Structure formats: C-alpha cells, structure tokens
C-alpha cells in the first residue's frame, strides 16, 4: 500500500469529517442545552446550501460571502420558529420525544417547500474554484474541500469562543449544567434557549454550505446529512463542541483509511460497523466529562 494514496485519502477524509462536525455542532448544542433533538437541523443546512446556490447563480456571490447573508437570515428565522414551535413543547413530559416528532414534521415541510421553490433537480455548488486544487508535492488539496474545511474550523471555533468567552455563552452553559441555579441568578431560560436554538440553526446553514461544496444536493439530501450529523454528535458526546470536532476528525480518518485499504464496497459497512463497536466500548462518546 503506498503512502501517497493513504495520505491523500486521509486528507480528504479529514476535511470532509470537519464539515460534518460543523453541521453537527449546533445539533449537539440544542440537544445538550434544551434536550431538543432537532431532526430538521440538516434541512436548515440544506436551505443554507440552496440560498448560496441561488446567490451564486443569479448574483455571482461566492458561497463564503453568501454565508454572511444566509447565516443571519437563518438566525432570525430560527428565533421566530423557536417562539412558534419549540417553546410550546417545553412543557411536555418528554421533551426529547416531543421535539423529535415535531421537528420530523418540520423537516418534511421544509423538504417539500424546497422542492417547490428549487425543484427536485439535483444541484451542484460551483464557484470558480470548484474543481481546482492546491498541489503540494504529490498531494492535492481540492479548493472546495479546503474552503469547506476552513469554514468549518472557523464556525466551530466561533461557537467555542462564544460559549467560553461571552456572557451570553456562559449563561448558555450555566442554563444547561444547572438550570435552577442559573435561573436564580437571573438567567432567562427561554431567552437563552432561543439564542441557542437560533445559533444552532445558523451553524447548520454554514455547515450546509460547506457540505454543498463537496457533494451535490437535492431536496431530500437532508435525510442523508442527518445520519452523518447524528454520528458525529454521538461519537463526540452530546453537547460537547470539542468532542464534536474530534468526532468529525475520527470519522474522517476512519473513512479515509478504509478508502485506502479496503475494497470500496466495504467502506460504508466498515465505517458504520466500527462506529457501532466504538459506541459499545465507549458508550458516552469520546469525552465523558460533561460540559464543553
């Protein structure tokens, strides 16, 4: 087995894994902080992808730039959706279950609205650099992968710093770790939840754009994306930002290595099989410690 193949395969695996991580990090937060399993998370990612597709197609705006438009847009939309849909179900006995059913419905609605607006045809995000690559010796770094990777690292770092350094971020963490105490200190749980939810949805948008740089997408693609983000989040540990990023790396490494060593037919099977075994032996994800 030669080194070029292994390393090249690892490079693209890791870049891909980080993109999954960005898509997953918000999912992880809503789950951890609000106990809401947000099934339509990936569908919002897909909206981000479609928005940047349209902006690129009709206004020639680069996807990275259009992220600056669609991310805030998704943030505002998500605030509204939180008030309208998520807040009413916080009184359910089992928020996890209720939120799953509700957001499953939301995902179906979003998928079909996208199908009505953008039609069912598959789309490919093709900025000018879409099929170029940075060549370093025998290795190729595909530009779209690089941009997606960069966007992901940026997004995850931003979320991390927000939680660690800002007052609101600390309130989010407090609300999650000790909801009662946080309330006593004057933290408005609903407001915190709304911000968490909106933030999560906007990172999904950015993640969707990054993923759209790697693969083609259709209105139903979010079902597939959801599976990957589920994996990233669980392997990383629910609510764990750093864990999610690490999980993205690990999934990327597993995929990259199995692509290099195994017949391709077995890659997906081995990936899922290894993750299953991993979870059996580390049932709390990578990092057991609660918190960040």
């Amino acid at each position, binding site marked *: 087995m030669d080194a070029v193949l292994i390393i090249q395969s690892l490079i693209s695996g890791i870049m891909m894994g980080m993109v999954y991580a960005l898509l997953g990090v918000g999912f992880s937060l809503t789950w951890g902080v609000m106990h809401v399993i947000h099934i339509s998370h990936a569908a919002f990612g897909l909206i981000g992808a479609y928005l940047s597709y349209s902006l690129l197609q009709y206004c020639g705006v680069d996807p990275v730039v259009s992220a600056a438009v669609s991310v805030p847009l998704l943030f505002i939309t998500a605030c509204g959706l939180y008030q309208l849909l998520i807040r*009413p179900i916080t009184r359910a006995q089992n928020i996890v279950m209720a939120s799953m059913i509700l957001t499953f419905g939301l995902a179906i*609605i979003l998928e079909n609205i996208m199908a009505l607006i953008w039609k069912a045809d598959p789309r490919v995000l093709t900025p000018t650099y879409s099929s170029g690559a940075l060549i370093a010796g025998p290795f190729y770094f595909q530009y779209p992968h690089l941009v997606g990777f960069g966007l992901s690292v940026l997004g995850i770092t931003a979320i991390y710093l927000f939680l660690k350094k800002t007052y609101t971020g600390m309130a989010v963490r407090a609300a999650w770790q000790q909801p009662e105490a946080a309330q006593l200190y004057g933290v408005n749980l609903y407001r915190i939840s709304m911000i968490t939810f909106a933030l999560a949805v906007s990172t999904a948008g950015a993640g969707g754009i990054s993923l759209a740089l790697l693969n083609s997408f259709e209105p139903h693609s979010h079902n597939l994306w959801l599976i990957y983000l589920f*994996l990233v989040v669980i392997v990383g540990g629910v609510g764990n930002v750093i864990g999610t990023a690490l999980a993205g790396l690990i999934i990327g490494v597993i995929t990259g290595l199995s692509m290099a060593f195994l017949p391709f037919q077995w890659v997906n099977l081995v990936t899922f099989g290894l993750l299953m075994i991993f979870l*059996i032996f580390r049932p709390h994800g990578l990092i057991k410690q609660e918190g960040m």
Partner: protein
Amino acid sequence: MNKAYPVALAILVILLAAFPCIGPEVYYLSFMFSVFMYVILASSWNFIGGYGGYLSFGHAAFFGIGAFATAKLATMLQLPPMLTMLASIPAGGIAALVALIVGYPCLKIRGPYFSVVTLCFAFVVDLAVKNIEFLGGAEGLWLKFMDIPEKTSRTIMYEVMLLLMVVTLAVSWFLGRSRFGTGLTAIRSDEEVAETMAIPTAKLKIQAFVLSAFFPGVAGGLFAYYLGYIHADAVFSINISILIVLMAMFGGGGTWLGPIIGAVILTVVNEGLSTFAQAEIARIIYGALFIVVTIFMPNGIMDFFRKKGGKT
C-alpha cells in the same frame, strides 16, 4: 364494563376477519394489510422502546432480515408459494436470534447512545445484505407467486397478517399487565433504582428486545411475499425505522393502545393525502400533522385523551 371490553374487542377482530367476505376490492385488502403491518411494527417496537424506554432506531433491520430470510429460504428450499408464507416464521426466528446476539452488547448502552448504535446496526445489516451475495445481494430477490386468483391470495395474506397482528397485540396487552411489563416500565423510569429493587434488568431487556425483533421479522417475511420482489432499499430503509418510532410515540409509547392509534392514523392519513392532494402539498400537510399534534398533545394522543377522560 370490564367484561364488555374483551367481548367488544373480539367482535372487532371478527369483523376485521370477516371483512374479505363482503367482497372488497384487492386494494382495500392490500391497504389493510399494510395498516396491520405497521401496527405490528409499531407495537412490537413498543416492547423495548415504549415500555423499556430503549429507543431502537434500527428496527427496520429486523423487518428486512425477516423479508430476506423468507425469500432466501423459499428459493433455497424450493418451497411452493403457500409454504413460503410459513417460512416467515423461522425467518422471524432468525431476526430474533440476530437481536439476541446484537442486543447483548448494545443493551448495555443507554439513552441516545443506544438509539445511534441501533441506527448503525441497521446500516450494517443493509450493507451486508447488499454486499454479500449469499444474504441477498444488491440485485434483490424474486419470489414465486401463488397460482390462484389474485383476490384469494391477497385474502390469505390479509388474514395471516391480521392473525399476526392479533398475536402481537395480545403479547403487547399481556406485557402491559404482567410483572415483565412492570419490570420494563421500572427500567424506563430509572434503571439504577430498578436494579436495586432486584429486578433482573439485563435479562428483561434482552427478552423484550428479542421479542420485539421476532414479530417484525415475521411481518417482513409476509411483506416480501406481498411485494413479490424485494430489494434491500425497500425493506431496510431508514425511513421505515424512523416511521416505526414516530408511530409509536405519536400515539403514545408505553401503552399498548398508543402504537395502534399512531400506526393507524399515520398510515391512513398518508394514504388518504396522496389520493386527494398534489404531491408536495400532500407531504407538507402530512408534516404539519406532526407539528399540530405535538403542540396540542405534547405527551402523545393517548395521554391527551386520558387526561380529558380524567377531567370529565
């Protein structure tokens, strides 16, 4: 009143069993067949998911295993079509056996982690079937069909599925009232406490899991026979796994009636919508149903009516 209850149920079952006698069109038999099938899937998922609180996201795996095992048995043993239907019983056994093997390590994991392990498991099985020719292969398998009028064969399938549903529901009903069920419910509310109360949690969980795999396995065998041609994408689809969970939770998990209500409503509404509305609009209405029901009945339909019943 307590006596009237089983009697009324028996009458309902007899009415359902007699339904083919009024000479409905084949489609109605097939549609009811699929309703029964989803009731079986949701109710048996409920053994482990509803009562035990272990949300399996890979239950389509057992359904698919049953389907492929039946088709495989039929072709390997050259079974005549009628016997093929019986082959779905050992196929259910195979599904249960797989559940036993997989359940042993997986049931040690709790909460969302269990859900994701089962999700991965469903993918592994799906891909294994596609990749390994012996298990079915990516081409799919054809089954011979019965050499009798279509209506007769669909009637037989209808009755067999009804019988399977009645058995599943009887088990589910019994579970809700037995010590076994009580033990499972204790596990759901707090597994540590249940252990200190000397409830053999590990044993109960694995029993419930195996039982909840058996019925979907048999149903899968019948479904394979209903389709006549099965492909891994048709039986292992993640959508089926998710639909099973939603049906059970939609009606109200942990009760024997909840999954029935969920399965019946969702199947009927979905079918009705595709008949009366334009494709995307139909899906949007279907999606809205989940939202509306959750907002107004956040604890499931069953709970909502229980509370209403309690107030009046």
